[in-house]
């Protein structure tokens, strides 16, 4: 797309994409497609967390005495949930949605029908988030079987995970709107997603970093998710918990709006 295809500024700029019937249709399209590969995916989303929990939680964790008075696996498990919630939708809304935007022309076709850009955006973000939640569900089952947590608080935790998954989808889609080819996503992943998942209080506590680095990390969404999930799973309802949720909401609002404005430019001309 070149600048010539930009929409003229006379179009009213809405702050957030509008909701409509079409959201369900777009979501369901993805769900129907997902059914084609359902069983393979299902296996993977169980095997993956098992590997992570065994290799990192128990394997590496074996060499770590304890963190903030907790066993390593208890420190790591909320992070695994959060990272899963964020990155599964992130992958979906980068590679897959980029194909739909370009080679497959899926969105162009949908736009010939009464379904509008806003509904496509909501449908896609919610689909990404749904996939993230499904994976989190598998993580929590595996962890339950391994007896890592025993708390009913896992249920409210899923509300926060839903928010994080939505954020993952929105971040991915935002990257997609900047992409010129698939290589771009290599940068998005090794330049954004991976560093963020390493340094967001996930595999080790961040208080061992220089304070400048700690501040920088807080400008990215993931650490707020990790904090919120960890606090809630511990059963602590501190102001930090609410603050983290608030920050996540602000991120969700900002990213959705930004992704929407850019996505609209790419699809309407």
């Amino acid at each position, binding site marked *: 797309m*070149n*600048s*010539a*295809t930009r*929409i*003229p500024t006379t*179009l009213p700029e809405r702050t957030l994409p509008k909701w409509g*019937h*079409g959201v369900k*249709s777009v979501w*369901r*399209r993805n769900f*129907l*497609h997902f059914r*084609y590969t359902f069983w393979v995916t299902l296996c993977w989303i169980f095997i993956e967390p098992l590997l992570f929990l065994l290799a990192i939680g128990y394997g590496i964790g074996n060499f770590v005495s304890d963190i903030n008075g907790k066993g390593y696996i208890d420190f790591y498990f909320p992070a695994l949930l959060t990272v899963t919630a964020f990155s599964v939708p992130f992958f979906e809304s980068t590679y897959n949605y980029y194909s739909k935007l370009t080679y*497959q*022309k*899926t969105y*162009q*076709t*949908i*736009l*010939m*029908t*009464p*379904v*509008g850009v806003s509904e496509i955006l909501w449908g896609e973000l919610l689909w990404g988030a749904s996939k993230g939640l499904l994976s989190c569900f598998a993580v929590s089952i595996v962890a339950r079987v391994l007896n890592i947590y025993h708390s009913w608080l896992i249920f409210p935790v899923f509300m926060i995970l839903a928010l994080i998954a939505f954020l993952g989808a929105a971040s991915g889609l935002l990257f997609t709107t900047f992409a010129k080819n698939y290589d771009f996503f290599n940068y998005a992943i090794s330049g954004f997603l991976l560093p963020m998942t390493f340094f967001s209080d996930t595999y080790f506590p961040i208080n061992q970093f220089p304070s400048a680095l700690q501040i920088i990390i807080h400008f990215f969404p993931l650490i707020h998710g990790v904090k919120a999930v960890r606090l809630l799973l511990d059963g602590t309802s501190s102001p930090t918990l609410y603050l983290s949720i608030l920050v996540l909401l602000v991120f969700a609002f900002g990213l959705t709006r930004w992704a929407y404005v850019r996505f609209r430019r790419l699809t*309407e*001309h």
Partner: protein
Amino acid sequence: MNHITIEAKGLTKKFGDKTVVNKIDLEIYKGECFGLLGPNGAGKSTTLRMMYGISHIQQGELFVLGMNAKTHARDVKTRIGVVPQNDGLDVDFSVLDNLLVYASYFQINFGTALERARHLLRIMKLDDVWQSPVEQLSGGMKRRLTIARSMINQPDLLFLDEPTTGLDPQARAFIWDLLRKFKADEKTLVLTTHYMEEAEQLCDRIGIMDRGSIIALGTPAELILRHAGKQVLEIGLKPEDIPYFSRKLTQDQYEFLPLENKIMLFLKDTNKPEKIMNIIPSQEIVFRPASLNDVFLRLAGYDLKD
């Protein structure tokens, strides 16, 4: 006077500083088949895309089915069918699922969608391949599936951007038949094509587009009479002789078109073929009725674009 289905006034589209559609005024009537012809890059697809609501209308007015296309694109879209130039089939799905998924965008309930999809697949002779992934279909099958898809919401108005490009003669005839049946139902068709035969076979009226403007408009017969006369003389010549004879014909105020190795001469009632043979001594002279092809060549075929 017929009912108007599409009305465009001063419709204009620019990409950057390139004007692709230039102040088009056009009326398309209910129940007719309207054909848009023109060389590559003339702006046919862009015009259609504005009409079916996926290209932003920058300037001018456009009313489709009595609704303002600028403000009511969504309402327009529920009542039209679209066959875009590139099929745009969903490669993630099988033949039947393509129709069902598309139907769901129109909020058509599953039972109705399934019934309509089965019916359309039968009409389109696709019922044997309903389970195939769409990448496995031949070009003709893909086109038929795209047409089936465009009819899933039972539209009153159908847009077809080059419906038969790249298809074999049988497949083309099949689609023509189908579109005739569709039209017989009081429905309106708007299509673009590069095939004069297709336009002559299907279209009640034709607009010829060139560089963003409609340069001729009318029934095929009117256009032929107006722009090519009744008869055409094709005079075979050596390329190096063409400039000389062109000058002579111009002096005598003949209407003609010099081509690479022949001159096409459009005869008026007053012209006598024998006189021309005196001017141009050529062994290869063909005398034939004028056709839409002549009109097209004359109006838009002077050189190769893009």
